[in-house]
Structure formats: structure tokens, C-alpha cells
């Protein structure tokens, strides 16, 4: 994979990454807002990374804003996302030898990430996750997913509905059927 070139751990490479992050590129939200972001940070988004690479020279990249057309990329969401990538761009690359998928899944969020993602405005939270998904920023989707997970954990279906403001769209018959599906679990032998 071409990715791997970026993941080679070395002082040289880190310097290049730091240097590149001094280059500011412009990102444009679906609402029209234009925001600056370091190049290395912005490339944490695979979408942006591919766009930048297809555009070629840095000169073009720094003048024209990159348009993120998906509706989820609101001004507020984009601001949040830039805050996240600007904080995380110099994270060490994931070492697949030492942590497997499952370990990473169970890993707690860092304190910074927790504070970052714990926003009061649920619409913003889902905008950020949907936008991060659209922009292909795996780390951030992961953070959002873990956050929502921690809220769902241990709750009943009614509590989940209330928390996430979801309407129950099952008919009474369907609900009965699902209950029956589960009924045998409760039955004693």
C-alpha cells in the first residue's frame, strides 16, 4: 500500500510531516465556510489526502479551497474536525504487531478525546461523526463510535430511544413478535 510510505517511523519522516503541517490548506464546508488546516493534519482524512495528491503541486492546494460537499460537513462540524486533526496529526502510527483489532476496540478514549467528543449538542455530534465518515478519518469515527457506545451501554431500549431521540417505528404486532423471539430466553426449563 502507498500508505505505508507515510508510516515509516524515522526522524526524517517526522520532520517532513512537521514541515508539511506548516503549509496551510483551505477546507470549505457544505455551508460555504472556509477554514484553514495544516496539510499533514488535513491528510488524516483519506478523502482530502486523495484530493490533494490528485491535485499535485502544493501551490494549487494552498490557494484553492478543497470543497467538502457532503451535507454533514457543516461549519460547526468542520471546525470540530479540524480541531481534532490538528491535535492528532503527530500521533505515532499504529503498530499492528503489538495491538490487534480487539485491543484497540477495548481501549479507553484519551482524556482529550473524551472532552473533545462530549458535546451537548447531539446534532453536532452526529454531524461530526457523519462528516468524519464521509471524509474518511478512521480515528475520529472510532472516537465518536466509542463515545456513543459508552452512552448506550447498559441502557434499555426505551432509554436508548429517549437518549438518541429515536422514534419507535415497530407496530404492536412486530413488537410482540420480537418479544416472542426473545421469550424463550426468559423461560425456565
Amino acid at each position, binding site marked *: 500500500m502507498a500508505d505505508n510510505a507515510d508510516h515509516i517511523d524515522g526522524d526524517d519522516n517526522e520532520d517532513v510531516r512537521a514541515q508539511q503541517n506548516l503549509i496551510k490548506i483551505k477546507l470549505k464546508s457544505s455551508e460555504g465556510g472556509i477554514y484553514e488546516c495544516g496539510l499533514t493534519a488535513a491528510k488524516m482524512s483519506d478523502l482530502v489526502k486523495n484530493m490533494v495528491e490528485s491535485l499535485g503541486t502544493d501551490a494549487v492546494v494552498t490557494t484553492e479551497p478543497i470543497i467538502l460537499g457532503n451535507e454533514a460537513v457543516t461549519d460547526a462540524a468542520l471546525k470540530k474536525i479540524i480541531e481534532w486533526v490538528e491535535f492528532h496529526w503527530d500521533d505515532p502510527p499504529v503498530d499492528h504487531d503489538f495491538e490487534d483489532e480487539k485491543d484497540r476496540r477495548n481501549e479507553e478514549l484519551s482524556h482529550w478525546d473524551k472532552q473533545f467528543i462530549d458535546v451537548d449538542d447531539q446534532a453536532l455530534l452526529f454531524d461530526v461523526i457523519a462528516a468524519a465518515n464521509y471524509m474518511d478519518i478512521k480515528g475520529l469515527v472510532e472516537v465518536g463510535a466509542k463515545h456513543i*457506545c459508552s452512552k448506550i451501554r447498559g441502557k434499555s431500549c426505551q432509554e436508548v430511544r429517549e437518549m438518541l431521540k429515536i422514534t419507535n417505528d415497530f407496530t404492536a404486532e412486530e413488537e410482540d413478535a420480537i418479544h416472542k423471539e426473545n421469550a424463550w430466553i426468559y423461560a425456565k426449563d
Partner: protein
Amino acid sequence: MSDSMDASTLSQTSVVQKLTKMPNKSYNLRRRVGDSASKAGRHSSPAVSRTTIDDLPDDCLLDIFEKLDTIQDKCALQRVNKRFYFLVNRLLKAQKTFTVGSTFGDNNEQMLTQRICRTIIKRCPNLETFKMPGFYTKTSTNTLEERIGDKEMFSLGRKCKELRELDICGCGNVTERGINYIADVCPKLEKLSISFCLQVSGASLQKLTKNFRTLSINTNDMTPPLVDCLKSLSKGDGKHITELNVCAYNELNSQENILQMICTEFQCLRTLRYSIVSKDLVKYGLFGSLRNLRELVFDCNALNLSDHEMLNIMMGCKDLKSIFIRYEHGKDHNTLTDYSLRKLPLFCPNLVKFNFQSKETGLGVTDTTIESFSQLKHLEFLGFRNFDNI
């Protein structure tokens, strides 16, 4: 206040979505409203945005749902709405691994009951790995009859034909019948752990197929009976296993020399983790027959391992990559010295890890050994604990 208002408008939009069956389109509509608002004054846009979890694409939701590891949470999610129901169902159907229950039941939600076990089996027919360390805990909720038993083994065998790995450590109600059934109907089984299965005699282990690779048994007071289990395993195709983990905690009171039996019966072993407390002197002479051995763990209180025997092991198992030896040095027992250890690089040139721990100070091992280890090209880890002469 604004919350409840939000909720009512929200439920309307999602109703619209469901009615039109075009969630994306209604999403666009809503967003356009937000757009016009943002032209008037961009800062008001977050208040107008009404994105809910329902606006996330499927793969995003699946990302979230799969992180919930208890079946209770997943079942609760299923009942939230239709979309959740189908997504969670898709996840469960695809799920290949389930680990449930904690060995030490500090977390009640994670504790394994028959109910949970059966739900998992019913919902996840494609399970390949099922680990349920149903270690009975001190909490009153998990009484004797609630422990995982044969009934669960039967339904597991009926549903999950693809099963490759099963860990029923401490599932006290499983008897030989349960194991027998699994051995009969799950021919793909590769790994089995029957540690602390108090009612298992081991007789059906001889039915295991040639796919079987790894057996783990920890026993306490000889239940399950380690010697019998190994004997019946060696009678069938199970004798070709490549990994064996045995551990007996209480003083082993057996006439059999277990190590000797392992060496003669299971010659394909690549990994042997041997941790047995025994007064008997162990005979290592046959150890050389385990020619495929890659990883060796000896963790015993009194390991009667002399230089001569260590040399035998080294000469026989030339492919060893990892050695871990730990013992509390008993007075009457032999111990290792430079004499054998400095020859290790000669016989086992591929060694990657070497870890040697001894409770009482090992007098016989000095810097000479360490110096000779410099010839090991692949060595990545070297550990000596409690050695004064190094």
C-alpha cells in the same frame, strides 16, 4: 425546554423519512433549510441542524454497534427501531467471535448465565470462536443450577457447526455428555479449553478430529482428571495436536509421569506449556523426541532439571524459539548451570526468547552463559531473574 421541542420536531422528521422511504432526500431537504439559515447568519446554523443518529450511514452505525460487546446491549438495541433491528441482526449473523464472562465476576453485566449463553448461541449461528469462562463467582446470582451445562453445549453444537475454538473454563455443569456432543457435531474444532470443568472425565477427547490443534487443561485437585484426558486424547486423531497447555495447581498425586507421557504420545507438539506441582521426580530423557517444539514453558515449584537433562532437551528440540523456565529451587533438586546453558546457542541457534527465573539465587549461572548468548542472532528477549552471579 428546547430539548423537548427538539424531540417533537425530530420525531416528525423521522416519520417523514419513514413515510417517504427516502431518508436521503428528506435529509437533503432539512439541510437546505439549514443552508438558508446559515446564509442569514452562519452562527445560528448549529441550532438549526437536526442531525440524529438515524442520519448516519449504515456502515457508521455498524461501527458503533459492533463495539457493544454484551449480548444484552445488542438485544436492547434491536428493539429500538426497525433499522437498528436489521443492522444488529446483520452484525450478530456475521459475528464469528464471542467472548463473554469474566473470570473474576466483578462486573455483573458481563457475567455469564444460561440465558445469556443461549441468546448468543441462537443469534450468532456462524460463531467460530466462543469463549465463555463461566467461572462461578461468589455473587448469589449465579447459583449452581444456573451455571453453564450440557444443555448449552447441545444447543451450541446444533447451531454453530463452524465452531473452531471453545473455551468453557470453569463451566461446572458441563459433563462428559456435553463434550461428547461437541466432539461429534463440530468436526472443525481446533481449540478446546476444559479448565476446571469439574464433571468432565475426558473420555470423549478421543473423538476429536485431525483438525484439532490445541488443548488447554487447568486442574485443581485433579478435576478434570488430567492423566485420563491426555490418555484418551492420544487414542484418537487428537494425538497430532500442536499445542498443549497443562496446569495442575494442587499437589499432584499421580503415579503417572505426565511429562513422559506427553513426550511419547504427542510428538507433533510445537508449543508445550507445562506447569505442574508435583513431588515426583520428572524424567526428561524422552524430551528429545519432541522434535517440532518451538515454544517451551516450564513453570514448576520444584523443577528437577539438571544440566544433563537440559542438554537432552536442547539436542532434541533444535527448533526451539522460545524458552521460559521458572522454579523455586528445592534443596534436593538439581539445578541448571553454565555447563548446559552456554551450549544453548550451539544446539538451538534460532532462539528468540529466553527467560529464566528462579526463586532462590541460581549460583551456577554466570556471565559465561550470557557471553555465549551473543552468538544467538535472532535473540530479542533475554531475562534472568534472581541470579546473583550475572
